[in-house]
């Protein structure tokens, strides 16, 4: 009997722990959302003063904030598309073909992910400085594509590895040439992975601070705006945009979970 009780306690202790841990993970998010409705006195939005909708109504009242967001979105759109195309091509080569230099390629893809961001940013700035390339929009996009490629390769590769090659062989047997097979069979099958890579790249780009800080020149992306405003007290509108990004990303992720579950059910 007593072993029954200890087993039950152990069972529920882990569940209780999981609940506490979830609370810990969500706490700062709750704070960000709550403080977007705060009515701060003075310039620091640290302590709760009172509920207001003004920050949401006047989300664009802070000079430079919406411009920085638009810049971030433009950079993310451009960088994620370029990186996803380049990364998908690398993933195709790695999974589909045997060639010399495979392990070197894997290493080159893996290295940027395991290098501290500050070193990536510093080395790019060293390059731009010594070649006298002015930093700005273009250098930010270049840097973002560089660090996103690896993530795109990993994302698309994971899908390609578990993919039934017989489908392509069947297409070839039916007389399709390589290009047609790719377009009609391969591409539709890996499209979800490409979409995931695109979304991941977009998210990584919008969120990047460290590398961008080094190569931005006079441009101010959204994270750079937050950094600059943090020194003098970030306005609650920063929380408004932070909350908006969170809700959009969460909606996209939830949609993905639902689609995956449906696909898994369909496959059964």
């Amino acid at each position: 009997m007593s072993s029954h009780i200890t087993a039950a306690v152990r069972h529920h202790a882990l569940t209780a722990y999981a609940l506490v841990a979830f609370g810990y993970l969500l706490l700062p998010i709750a704070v960000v959302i709550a403080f977007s409705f705060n009515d701060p006195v003075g310039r620091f939005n640290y302590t709760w003063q009172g509920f207001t909708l003004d920050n949401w109504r006047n989300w664009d009242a802070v000079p430079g904030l919406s411009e920085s967001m638009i810049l971030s979105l433009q950079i993310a759109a451009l960088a994620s598309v370029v990186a996803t195309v380049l990364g998908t091509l690398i993933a195709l080569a790695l999974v589909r073909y045997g060639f010399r230099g495979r392990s070197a390629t894997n290493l080159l893809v893996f290295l940027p992910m395991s290098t501290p961001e500050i070193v990536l940013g510093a080395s790019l700035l060293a390059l731009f400085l010594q070649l006298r390339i002015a930093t700005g929009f273009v250098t930010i996009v270049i840097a973002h594509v560089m660090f996103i490629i690896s993530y795109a390769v990993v994302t698309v590769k994971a899908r390609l590895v578990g993919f039934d090659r017989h489908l392509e062989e069947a297409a070839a047997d039916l007389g399709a040439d390589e290009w047609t097979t790719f377009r009609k069979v391969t591409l539709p099958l890996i499209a979800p992975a490409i979409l995931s890579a695109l979304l991941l790249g977009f998210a990584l780009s919008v969120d990047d601070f460290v590398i961008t800080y080094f190569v931005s020149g006079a441009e101010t992306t959204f994270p750079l705006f937050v950094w600059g405003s943090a020194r003098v007290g970030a306005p609650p509108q920063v929380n408004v945009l932070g909350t908006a990004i969170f809700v959009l990303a969460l909606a996209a992720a939830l949609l993905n979970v639902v689609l995956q579950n449906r696909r898994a059910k369909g496959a059964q």
Partner: protein
Amino acid sequence: MGYLHRHRGLVPYLLLAPGLAWLAVFFIVPLGFLAYQSLQSGSFDFGYAFDWSFGNYWEAIDRYHEHLLRSLIYAGLATVIALAVSYPLVYWIAFRGGRWKNLFLLVIIAPFFVTYLIRTLAWQSILSDSGFVLDALRTVGIVEAGGRLLATPVAVVAGLTYNFLPFMALPLYVALEQIDARLLEAAQDLYASKVAAFLRVTLPLSLPGVFAGTLLTFIPAAGDFINAQLLGTPREHMIGNVIQSKFLELIDYPAAAALSFVLMAAIVALVAVYARSLGTEKLTG
């Protein structure tokens, strides 16, 4: 297409070329420039010139070994705490999550949906002198009356732990999720206690996840400067803060470049020791 058909061996290289060229030009070449810059001497006013100034490295280590050591200790602590916090959580999701696994996993990555800087600022307000955490700790008596959380090493390590925890949890989850439940049944059929089954089956099989998670958490944490900047004071500054300010504020490029390589060397050395101590043959199966 006809040409490619005759030269099939070329296809992989054509697929690789644009992406690898990008990585070569904007990742490898810049590291070369950084190395070149780390061996220059001079001053901001008169310019820097390359002259094999290896002295930059000795000076970097001599002047900033405390920052370097602090970075490794803070990052190490954050990694260990992130492992301790996420292992039971991820275990629960993998073995008790049922059909809601993906949803629970989403909660783990939810912090990533809030901009990095904004979630760190949220910790600033949670740990602040007027925040409820400090209130509670004072009431319980863990923190004395005049004590603080913000602007202490505790705050910096807490920030690092939270910000990089998903990097620990996701590879751990992948490793635990793949464990065949029949192995655990077999262990119990052979009269292993639950604890023994965990120690002899689950834990060893999860080691690749522990290894990957540790690296993915430790490396970015060791190079971070945002947590020390927003949650600490100059007394908690890490090597990243020094590199950042030398590069962007003091315009002392050679010192900043040398420090970057010292950081990389320290990370590579630690990772090598760590990989050896876990046993690479165990990890690669």
